[in-house]
């Protein structure tokens, strides 16, 4: 009897102690790579698939070499992302040289020659404490695309032919198209086109808008994956409204200093491999096949021995 009472008391005691709830502290330890500085490199990208892909390519290659990179994809158009760069929220982002000159440097009479354009852009950036790393072999120029049917109907071959189209030509394009020189502004100035009206679309949507007839023409990029199979007609640009658009990373000189020569070496090595065909293939994989840009970039870098 007495043993039973003791056992019960003991059980009660033990039950009272239980149920306190453990919840051990979780210690998270992070080991940095052997990069030269503590602060990671803050890399941004513009807000369309090719830009995101470029960000993955540069970032992964740098990470493979031990540089700590924080990638912020999809930030916005050049106007915004460059503002973020100069405001100190970013250290680096890949930019199209033509857009940089026309929209950021406000240089409407930019050189037609890619090398001259590169020098001009670099000079512009260096005045503000930034610089350009090496540019890519590929150029993703802006262009106007129409469906083959529409081209046949109005006898379109060049942009100038759009003047013959009766009524309004609806152009599906990113919102900034309306205010850019490489947009309605330049087209009006160089070709005297007054019948164009911009329909703002997120980049990448314009092909579907063309297919559905919501727009008559679309502002596209020459490296778009959709252009691989000749389903669309690109209109010639004899008066050179759309400049060449080679890509080069814009980087703050402070970041360049703190991360050492390795940063420029790795980025330049990546840029050198980015040909037009390589870009178009990768764009098709991302946009048409719906693959993860991270995986596509990884595959490319491994193939190019950059990772």
């Amino acid at each position, binding site marked *: 009897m007495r043993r039973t009472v003791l056992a019960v008391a003991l059980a009660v*005691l033990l039950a009272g102690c239980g149920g306190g709830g453990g919840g051990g502290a979780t210690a998270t330890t992070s080991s940095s790579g052997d990069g030269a500085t503590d602060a990671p490199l803050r890399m941004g990208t513009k807000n369309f698939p090719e830009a995101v892909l470029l960000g993955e390519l540069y970032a992964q290659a740098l990470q493979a070499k031990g540089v700590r990179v924080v990638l912020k994809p999809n930030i*916005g158009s050049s106007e915004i992302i460059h503002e973020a760069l100069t*405001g100190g929220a970013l250290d680096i982002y890949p930019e199209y040289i033509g857009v940089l000159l026309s929209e950021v440097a406000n240089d409407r009479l930019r050189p037609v020659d890619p090398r001259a354009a590169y020098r001009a852009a670099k000079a512009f950036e260096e005045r503000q404490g930034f610089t350009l790393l090496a540019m890519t072999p590929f150029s993703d120029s802006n262009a106007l695309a129409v469906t083959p049917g529409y081209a046949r109907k109005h006898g379109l071959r060049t942009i100038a032919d759009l003047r013959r189209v009766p009524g309004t030509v609806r152009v599906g394009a990113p919102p900034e198209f309306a205010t850019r020189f490489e947009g309605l502004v330049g087209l009006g100035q160089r070709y005297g086109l007054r019948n164009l009206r911009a329909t703002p679309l997120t980049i990448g949507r314009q092909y579907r808008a063309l297919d559905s007839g919501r727009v008559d023409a679309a502002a596209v990029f020459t490296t778009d994956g959709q252009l691989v199979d000749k389903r669309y007609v690109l209109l010639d640009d004899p008066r050179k409204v759309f400049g060449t658009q080679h890509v080069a990373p814009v980087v703050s000189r402070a970041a360049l200093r703190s991360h050492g020569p390795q940063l420029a070496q790795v980025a330049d090595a990546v840029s050198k491999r980015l040909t037009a065909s390589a870009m178009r293939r990768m764009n098709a994989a991302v946009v048409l096949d719906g693959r993860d840009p991270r995986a596509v970039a990884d595959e490319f870098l491994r193939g190019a021995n950059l990772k």
Partner: protein
Amino acid sequence: MTRAREGDRRVRRTLRTPITTRVVLLSATASVLVGTVLVVLIVAVTGQRDAARSAFRSQEALTAGNQLEKSLITIENGLRGFVASGARSRERFLQPATRALAAYPRDLSRLEGLVADDPGQQQRVDQIAVAIDDYVRLWARPLIELGKTRPDSARSVVVTNGGRERLDGINREFASLFARERQVIRSREDRAEQRSSRAIGFGVGGLVLVLILTAAVTLYLRRAVVRPVVTVAEATARLASGELSARVPIERHDELGDLARGFNAMADSLEQNRAELERSNAELKRSNAELDQFASVTSHDLQAPLTTISMYAELIERRHAADLNGGIALVDGIRSATQEARTLIRDLLEYSRAGRRPLALEEVPAGELVGRALEALAGPITAAHAQVTVDALPVVTADRASVTRVFQNLVGNAVKFTAGRSPDVAIGAEPAGRMWRFWVRDNGIGMEPADAERIFAPFKRLHGEEAYPGTGIGLAICERVVAQHGGRIWVTSEPGAGSEFSFTLPAVEG
């Protein structure tokens, strides 16, 4: 058979532990039980308080999160208004956005502090913090700058460049944070609820257990302590009433077992003593009877030769007085010695008869008996010029001759043992319960208190026969007579101040 023995062994083992140890163990168990119940209740109350506190924290976290969301919406709306409106009204839109931009880090750090105890939530808040930071640094601030320098560009950018999408993403993260926080609140409340109901259960159960234990202890004490004590008390009462064979069963090995054993040993010893007493009493009676018989026979048988000797001594004196010359004195010696021996033998016979002869009891006025005794002592009283006063005396149940003899002996002694002055003797009586106490008081020589007992023994004399003649058997006879009547006799005295002899006789019934 086997089972019974086993049970027996178990009982013995349990009962071998001292009661003190058992009581201490029981109290300790009860204390532990009560203490445990208290501890459980305290734990439950603490748990509930903690739950309330953390629920309050969670509520605060929800509030801080909502505040943050509101700040972000303010910023985004301000940005849109700022970008969309003309130069004159844009500052109006920018001001709230700027204020919200300045205020949000405080809300964020408050939120971070409030979820610091939940790693999962902490991670969510970290993600939200990064998203908000990105929104502010990569979208809001650049857009403001752009709006200031190039309003047209800013206006075109704001249409599709995803400020809204970013906010929606942040809001989704907030939603998951809030859902998780609400879930935390609910589960904490559930747990506290569960714990408190369990504590109530434990408390009630513990109290019931304590009550049961108390009842068990009471029953146990009754069984283990009170009942055995009562058994011993009953046996003691039986023993006191003379039933010396009373014993208690010994079935324990604790303090009460010791008590029972002690009682039994005492009873054993008492019983044995009484048996011995009875045996020696019987022995004594038998030898007394033999002695009495012997004395009676001897004194009776001695009387005849003594008479013969006395007769021959008389004949010698009568017939040969002339021949004897001086020898006649020798014959006188023989005669007086013979007389003395006869007196002695007479007294001895009387003593041996006293107490053996059946009493002829009758109701008799004691005054009458005293009167006879004084008549018989008229000679010595007159000779000693004694003054005898007799109070009114009661009627008693007594044997006439024997009690007369008692008065006669006592008054005779009072008259005999004078201290040179004329004796003053007082006789009286007073009731003493169902008896009467009679006294015979004198102003004689008295005696030492140490002698007061001895003088009632046969042939016990305090003085030489030359000083006060007598055989020393009178008081012994008185003692026997009084004892045969169921009374007792004693003396209180002081040397030189006289003595008071008292004896008791039964009063007349009714």
